[in-house]
């Protein structure tokens, strides 16, 4: 475990030393932004809209005390979404989609000698292949989390209105109550940390794949598992530190 962590730190260091030209890395980063960000919009939208809807319906189901106003449903959906569900669940979904894609892609490049081909050319393969993926993740995760926040709240609104669990007016009143802007900042900080963890861990697992197709599959699975565990640990640590 300690040895692996040491190798991980050396891997990050090798990526940052002897970087390739900025123009090359920029172009690669933009390409990765499309792969990691734009191509994930659909799944993030679906997941977040339904999470918002389910949260709204379940809170309404549990809210049986007539003394508590119905606007509390909107308030709770907003708080849960912004503080936890949007950044964490989105990042877990992206760990599955993006993390496995990064690990599988790099693993395949490794076993088909494409990484060696880069190194023989004198190109820093870690910098060329991994740095743009991490940068793109750090740029795109917060944007996807903002999208997830909006769609989750809209999902709650639609679910509440359509099922009659809460009226539109009460829901809107709830989501406008006691709004703390820092919560958004906190969520975005979390998304940046999660982006780094998912992309760096997945890249590390993929980059050092050794063997054949079976090992590439194993690397993808391990990358997703480790990323999710890292997200949950970091989630707790950030909550304890920043709230």
């Amino acid at each position, binding site marked *: 475990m300690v040895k692996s962590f040491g190798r991980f730190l050396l891997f990050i260091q090798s990526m940052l030393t*002897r970087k*390739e030209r900025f*123009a*090359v890395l920029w172009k690669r980063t933009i390409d990765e932004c499309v792969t990691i960000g734009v191509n994930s919009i659909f799944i993030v939208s679906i997941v977040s809209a339904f999470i918002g809807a389910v949260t709204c319906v379940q809170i309404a189901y549990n809210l049986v005390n007539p003394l508590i106003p119905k606007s509390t449903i909107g308030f709770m959906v907003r708080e849960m979404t912004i503080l936890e569900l949007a950044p964490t669940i989105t990042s877990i979904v992206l760990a599955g989609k993006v993390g496995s894609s990064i690990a599988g892609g790099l693993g395949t490049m490794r076993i*088909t000698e494409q990484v060696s*081909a880069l190194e*023989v050319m*004198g*190109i820093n393969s870690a910098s060329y292949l991994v740095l743009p993926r991490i940068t793109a993740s750090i740029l795109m995760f917060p944007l996807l989390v903002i999208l997830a926040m909006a769609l989750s709240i809209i999902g709650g609104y639609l679910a509440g209105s359509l099922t009659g669990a809460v009226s539109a007016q009460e829901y809107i009143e709830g989501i406008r109550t006691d709004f703390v802007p820092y919560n958004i900042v906190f969520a975005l900080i979390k998304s940046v940390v999660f982006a780094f963890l998912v992309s760096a861990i997945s890249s590390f697992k993929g980059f050092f794949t050794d063997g054949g197709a079976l090992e590439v599959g194993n690397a993808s699975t391990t990358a997703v598992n480790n990323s999710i565990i890292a997200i949950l640990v970091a989630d707790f640590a950030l909550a304890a530190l920043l709230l």
Partner: protein
Amino acid sequence: MIEVHNVQKSFDGNQVLKGITCTFETGKCNLLLGGSGTGKSVLLQCIVGLMQPDLGSITFDGTVFTNNKVQIRQEIRRKIGMLFQGSALFDSMTVAQNVEFPLQMLTPEMSREERRDRVQFCLKRVGLENAGDKMPSEISGGMKKRVGIARAIAPNCTYLFCDEPNSGLDPLTSIKIDELIQEITYEYDITTVIVTHDMNSVVEIGDHIIFLYKGLKLWDGNKDEILNAQVPELKEFIFSSSLVRAAKRIDDESHTPA
């Protein structure tokens, strides 16, 4: 010229290279010959810098490569072209983009038009001028090897390394690939090192052959000398091929007085 001096390499206590000393000459096809597991590919990886030898030194035209400054190693690496066993083409790029890639990365001063001309020249040189728009998944194994050669020579490499260029190819395509490598070596006067266990390649293009056995260099010479070499391990290796045995028998019979 590439000089290898006393290169040793072990993996988990198993010594794969036991002090190899040899020279690869400029303008010649230098063959690293040997059976599976004799350390040919490990030696090749040590030479190109994909692996660090435990002991020994490797010199490219007088400049030490092993344990030298990163910048000097990078400079040498940028003169290296390599054809991998599985071709190692970037599967997200077209054939032309694969050939253009080292030019983009290593010679930023080249204009787009110059790069395009160079790519077209290299593809034409390997006989693939009409395959530039194809993806690697759309071309045959032999064509992939040709693209690999085109990519290796695109930035005007000084040293060309080929790791089993004939693996997975039919005999006719193998001969064509061998001939292409030989032509390029002579045409550009580069130092070519080929890892192989293919006896056809040995008799076709073996200007200088180094025979490895269990991590040791047992013999070196050329294609005219190899059939008469008096090293038992080499003789066993050569004559394990039925074709070579038959050719030798015919040759002997033709020299026997009636």
